[in-house]
């Protein structure tokens, strides 16, 4: 069967962007990286396109994270030069509520081990257990265990934040 980039793009693009976004936490960057993934897919014409796309996306995100660390190191050297420091984009119109909620999810995800996080994000991207196993090197049987643990940890971490927020609200109300 001929490689169907259009079909692949249509069915997996959004999932790939979401997957990348949860790794780089920058919407524009996630879209750029997703474009790159599909460019590579076009050049490579993989046999199992869906699995391939997510495997490449995971690799690209990993490279991106390393590059980000390098950039940060570089920025430390530039902290005394205000002009050179990057202006962080702040969207005034953005509802703080959603941003706060997202920040909490981000922090909750950060409490997971890299493997648990990867499996959870791959599952959420629509991959099956065998596909996840293929990509992560886990046994198919271990995917369920990992996913169960990841879900519990994510929800537990979020619950703790919720409780802390509640505590803070009560403390503010008292004072």
């Amino acid at each position, binding site marked *: 069967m001929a490689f169907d980039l259009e079909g692949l793009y249509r069915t997996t693009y959004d999932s790939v*962007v979401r997957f990348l976004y949860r790794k780089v936490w920058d919407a524009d960057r*996630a879209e750029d990286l997703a474009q790159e993934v599909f460019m590579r897919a076009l050049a490579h014409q993989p046999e199992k396109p869906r699995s391939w796309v997510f495997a490449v996306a995971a690799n690209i995100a990993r490279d991106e994270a390393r590059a980000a660390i390098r950039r940060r190191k570089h920025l430390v050297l530039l902290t005394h030069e205000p002009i050179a420091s990057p202006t962080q984009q702040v969207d005034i119109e953005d509802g703080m509520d959603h941003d706060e909620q997202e920040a909490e999810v*981000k922090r909750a995800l950060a409490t997971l081990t890299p493997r648990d996080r990867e499996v959870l994000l791959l599952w*959420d991207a629509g991959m099956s*257990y065998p596909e996840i196993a293929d990509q992560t090197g886990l046994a198919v049987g271990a995917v369920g265990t990992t996913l*169960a643990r990841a879900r519990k940890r994510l929800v537990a971490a979020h619950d703790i934040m919720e409780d802390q927020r509640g505590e803070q609200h009560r403390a503010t109300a008292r004072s």
Partner: protein
Amino acid sequence: MASNIVRPHVPEEELHAYCDGELSAPQRVEIAEHLLGCLICRSQHAEVEELRARTATLLALATPRSLRRAGIGSITPKRAPRQLRRYAAIAAVALLGPGLWFAVHPDRSSVAAGQYAASLAAPSLSNALLSAPSAATIRARATVLANLTTVSPHLSLVAPAVATAGLARAKVDLVDVDPVVASEWPASDWDAALQAGGGRLDRIGGVPVTSVRVRGRADGGRPTFMIRQQLADGRPVWVFEGPEDDVIPVNQVLQASGIAMSMAHRTRPDYVSTNGQLERTQRMVTVVGHLPVDSLNILASKLQVK
């Protein structure tokens, strides 16, 4: 006893795989069968479903703006109310309700009982793959369970009802599979139900309605409807619609017992009661059926008003 074979409880990770639709057909049948008879696993199953739903909600919050659909930003990833956890702990309910019903109505046809067990026990399971337990097996299990647990306080969750005059006439005579105790939900025809629903009654467009049941309220307020629709492959899906305080307990009981069910969907209060007064009752539509939750949510979102 129904069975002398002591089966181990389903490991948690296997319940995740079951809910994720990642098990083979024989494995699904085995777990579905086990869930039918094991209160502990049904409770655990309900917890896993809750965990899955919360994870999905949390992850949906971590979505770039360009991909956010309307409404997703307003989702609050709330913990399930404590009450629901309590319901989960008494996960016997939905099984015991009908189970007891079977136990005290041994004359019910075996076809209905078998189908009933199949539909309850096997969310996301193709009918063709399922070998339903016999009516005798169901009755035996139900009796055992009824003996093991106090039933009556839980049954009251779906009990209080007085049939609305005029709607109690059963015009449709279907051998049916009900998620509730049928005697409390008199059958109706579509026109009568539509009239009772104030001209509006939600259902899934394009999917034929095979039965309508109406449960009246003692105070004469808006009745609750249970509309059974049949998918092309033969699987039934139920739509519950009615005032919030009537539908929520049904929703909670079914959810707690691990029956896949869509999110409750509220609509505007718009019911005109029989005396012509506008009643500010909350309408809520829930869909229950043996499909994965995600599919049920999509179905619920496709509900059309006839």
